[in-house]
């Protein structure tokens, strides 16, 4: 649903990721942008330029925090220091909701800095949901978990990825950041129909949607975020919007980053789908 308790009942439109090469353009030209998504970790520092720029952006734009290192799916507990830093940033940005990935990436205090795939087991779902609840309680804002791209599956899995996602978000009572590019990438790597995934997502929990580009290799597809959005991903996006309504949407572009205007224009293509959905909803 567009505005729901998982995005603090906001109606954000189409945003883009805030990236260093665009800082100057944004601060000087002040382009009209619905909202920016920041990678939390880049601003979880004590002081200095990252925070100066962030404060300037916060003066003029709405910002949503997206993390890459909470690792809800890591069996080990959260680091206190890490959580304290996230909370400091949440206070600073006043982000209405916060997202991170449904994955793991650290074990015994060592960090891989990757988004590693979960085994889809009931035990993993329970543990992950507990950690999401703990984070929500501590941070005092709604959390949305994002489905990741993956390149491997485990023998011990007991369910599909979308069944696992459902299991986790029901137990945690949290939102979903639905990444339709990641669904497409994983469907190609694991031979499932991405439409089955989209149909299975609980629409009333979708707080936000990610769109992005990927790279096709001979034997697998990699989630590279260095291209415009591809047609099959737009098709999945259209269906997701049909099911969820016009939901806050964000384009991720992290590598070979073109000009601000190019990235923004690519993101705004989402309006074609959002507007027609909004019109449909109005006429109904």
């Amino acid at each position, binding site marked *: 649903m567009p505005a729901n308790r998982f995005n603090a009942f906001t109606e954000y439109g189409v945003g883009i990721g805030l*990236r*260093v*090469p665009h800082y100057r353009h944004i601060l000087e030209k002040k382009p009209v942008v619905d909202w920016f998504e920041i*990678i939390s*970790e*880049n601003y*979880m*520092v*004590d*002081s*200095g*330029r*990252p*925070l*100066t720029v962030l404060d300037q952006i916060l003066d003029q734009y709405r910002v949503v925090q997206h993390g*890459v*290192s909470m690792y809800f799916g*890591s*069996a080990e507990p959260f*680091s206190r220091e*890490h959580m304290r830093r996230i909370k400091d940033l949440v206070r600073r940005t006043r982000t209405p909701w916060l997202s991170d*990935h449904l994955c*793991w990436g*650290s*074990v*015994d205090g*060592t*960090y*891989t*800095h*990757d*988004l*590693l795939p979960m*085994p889809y*087991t009931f*035990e*993993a779902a*329970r*543990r992950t949901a*507990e*950690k999401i609840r*703990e984070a929500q309680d501590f941070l005092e804002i709604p959390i949305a978990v994002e489905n*990741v791209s993956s*390149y*491997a*599956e*485990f*023998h*011990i899995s007991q369910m599909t990825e979308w069944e696992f996602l459902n299991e986790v978000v029901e137990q945690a009572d949290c939102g979903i950041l639905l990444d339709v590019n990641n669904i497409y990438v994983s469907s190609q790597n694991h*031979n499932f129909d991405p439409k089955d995934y989209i149909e299975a997502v609980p629409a009333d929990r979708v707080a936000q949607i990610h769109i992005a580009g990927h790279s096709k290799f001979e*034997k*697998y597809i*990699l*989630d*590279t*975020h*260095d291209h415009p959005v591809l047609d099959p991903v737009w098709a999945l996006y259209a269906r997701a919007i049909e099911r969820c309504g016009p939901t806050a949407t964000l384009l*991720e572009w*992290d*590598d070979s980053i073109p000009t601000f205007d190019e990235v923004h224009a690519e993101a705004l293509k989402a309006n074609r789908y959002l507007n027609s959905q909004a019109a449909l909803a109005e006429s109904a």
Partner: protein
Amino acid sequence: MTTDAPELLALQRRMAAAVMRPLTRDEQMRRRDENNRSIADEADDFIKPNDRLSSFERLEIYNRQYWFRLFSSFEEDFPGLRSIVGTKRFERLMRAYLHAHPSSSFTLRNLGSSLVSWLTENREYGAPDTDAAIAMAALEWAHIEAFDNEQRPALTAEEAAALDDNSRLALQPYLRLFEASCAVDDALIAVREASAGASAQASNAVAIHLVRRTRSLKPAPGQIYLAVHRHEDSVYYKRLALEDYSLLRALESGVSLGDAIEAAFQQSAIAEEDRPAHIQSAFHYLMQMGWLCTPKENDL
């Protein structure tokens, strides 16, 4: 509260061990582990193959991705060290260091935090001029700290007026003091200017591991004393006189102001009668820069 997940933990330990295992020289996943067991068998045991990729190949995607991400972060942080030891040795040094000190922080910013101590204990990796290599690594780490370390309220004029010989002061956390027997500051500025350009931001997308060849560069010999600091969000390297450096070092160590002033002139050639004037102008500068603060309770 939280409960155990033994099966999940076991799988994560197993996968992390595989993902973090060093690559072969040509950046492939190894065929055998430390105990000469087949990694293909190990991969088959917990990862499903698909119609295009074996379990080994699927695991290898993560193994390579892990190392390439660390390499690109480390290379971005230590271009000066690379210029001193040269590309080939740098590659060896980087792999050995990252294997010995994998990341223990949620942020890659801290990846190089143990480099200086590791290099001091493993001097062969810094050859042929290990002292210059260690000095450069220390300068580059100081740069990272100066860039985003905390800025505390600076000592006010009124607080400064109330100081006496027994007062204790602290330095700004973003101010890092540094000495070396060669001009690594000039060398690093030259390297940074040569490669001025895009600095990539952390992302969950895959980093591509680029190897650029550089010849090894020798910094000019000569003792330097540096303040690596931040001003209006930019990092600067300020050469200091021995006396000023010694004064700051002493204050940083927590001794009283009187003792710090004494330490400042321990090896000084400045004539006794000129010392009060020197200290006065040094303090004027420190106040102007805002480098002094009142110590926190737990600093003492």
